[in-house]
């Protein structure tokens, strides 16, 4: 039995297979519409995340399966003090696979150790969010045709943004990927990413987005997250640092793609939405396909 806890749990070959399957689902959804009949997905969301949860639920429904679960910790047994280990043992009796979002780092690892069903980490605090990474990889590969030989700019909150850390971890495994890390000095990527992951790879750290726009194949924007700050003033000072608008888009390549894990606050101006290079809503669609593929793989149905 396999789990998905970290984006690196799959080898590059397994990832290719998974992304191929997701693309096949995209082309032939009817072929997969009944694959999960009689199966149940449990969505255990200790921390609200409507989009991720709906994406999982939509994925399971489109496969013909059913969904059970909870959407906040206070409506679950966690409010009564039940441990993750106990909850997962119980859910193992109800469902065939589960997706878990938890505010504490490493919660999904704890669940996987005790679980009798495959566990998908749907986000564990500021740590990992592997299905977002799978979504990003599928979006890039589907729209660009490749994951190697690209220059990717990552912009915004690179310190707390786990999607950024996971994506870097995943992309260093492909050939000739250049990283341009664009952030205020306070929100640089953590030193361990620089020293252990990016060490030996082609990367640069800059503070100015406009300067580097022309060289990018992909621009990955992130939100400066209010909940990761301890201090309101710091948040207000930071959040307007990098706003992508039409003027900045003029500096970019014709075929550059703009990705964003969403929700957006104001870091991408609405006027960019109609630009053909804006891929962030397509990314949401790919998120459903890749979750469908993942559920099928972990349930060993494809």
């Amino acid at each position, binding site marked *: 039995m396999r789990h998905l806890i970290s984006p690196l749990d799959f080898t590059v070959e397994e990832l290719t297979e998974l992304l191929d399957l997701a693309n096949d689902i995209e082309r032939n959804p009817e072929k997969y519409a009944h694959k999960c009949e009689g199966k149940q997905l449990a969505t255990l969301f200790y921390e609200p995340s409507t989009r991720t949860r709906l994406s999982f639920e939509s994925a399971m429904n489109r496969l013909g399966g059913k969904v059970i679960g909870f959407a906040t910790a206070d409506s679950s047994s966690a409010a009564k003090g039940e441990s*993750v280990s106990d909850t997962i043992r119980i859910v193992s009796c109800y469902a065939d696979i589960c997706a878990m979002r*938890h*505010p*504490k780092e*490493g919660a999904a690892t*704890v669940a996987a150790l005790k679980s009798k069903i495959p566990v998908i980490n749907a986000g564990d605090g500021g*740590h990992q969010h592997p299905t977002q990474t799978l979504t990003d990889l599928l979006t890039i590969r589907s729209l660009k045709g490749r994951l190697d030989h690209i220059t990717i700019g990552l912009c915004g909150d690179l310190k707390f943004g786990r999607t950024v850390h996971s994506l870097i971890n995943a992309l260093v495994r492909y050939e000739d990927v250049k990283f341009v890390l664009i952030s205020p000095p306070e929100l640089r990527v953590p030193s361990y990413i620089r020293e252990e992951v990016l060490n030996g790879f082609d990367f640069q750290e800059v503070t100015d987005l406009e300067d580097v726009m022309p060289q990018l194949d992909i621009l990955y924007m992130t939100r400066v997250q209010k909940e990761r700050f301890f201090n309101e003033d710091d948040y207000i000072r930071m959040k307007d640092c990098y706003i992508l608008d039409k003027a900045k888009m003029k500096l970019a390549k014709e075929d550059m793609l703009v990705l964003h894990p969403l929700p957006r606050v104001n870091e991408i101006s609405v006027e960019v939405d109609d630009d053909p290079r804006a891929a962030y809503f397509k990314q949401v669609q790919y998120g459903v396909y890749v979750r469908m593929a993942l559920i099928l793989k972990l349930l060993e149905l494809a």
Partner: protein
Amino acid sequence: MLNVSGLKEGFVLDHIRAGKSMSIYHYLGLDKLDCQVAIIKNARSNKMGRKDIIKIECSIDVLDLDVLGYLDHNITINIIKDEKIVEKKTLKLPKKITNVIHCKNPRCITSIEQELPHVFVLTDEKREIYRCMYCEEQYKK
């Protein structure tokens, strides 16, 4: 010099950095064991100037000393049986340490989950980096 032949069976931990013996006593959980322990502080040493020594009289399969590799890999372990040194062990960094050090990351699941073992994994041998198995935060001594 102090004589180790007084032990029938047990361990002599030699070449402990001077002053570190008490913390090793606690890390090994010797305070919880019902056996004779002698702690020698600031013994004269040709090699180190001063050193600490711990002598433990116990059955040699009682103690798991691998963790010493993490605490101070310069320590020499003498294993005593029938009043003789039967083995001299030098230490390596353990690949995994369970319930010796605790994760200090307040956002880690270990901070709330009941009775979860604290497990650290050696992720970089050269730089002696251990990371929490759950949150992957690096342990800082």
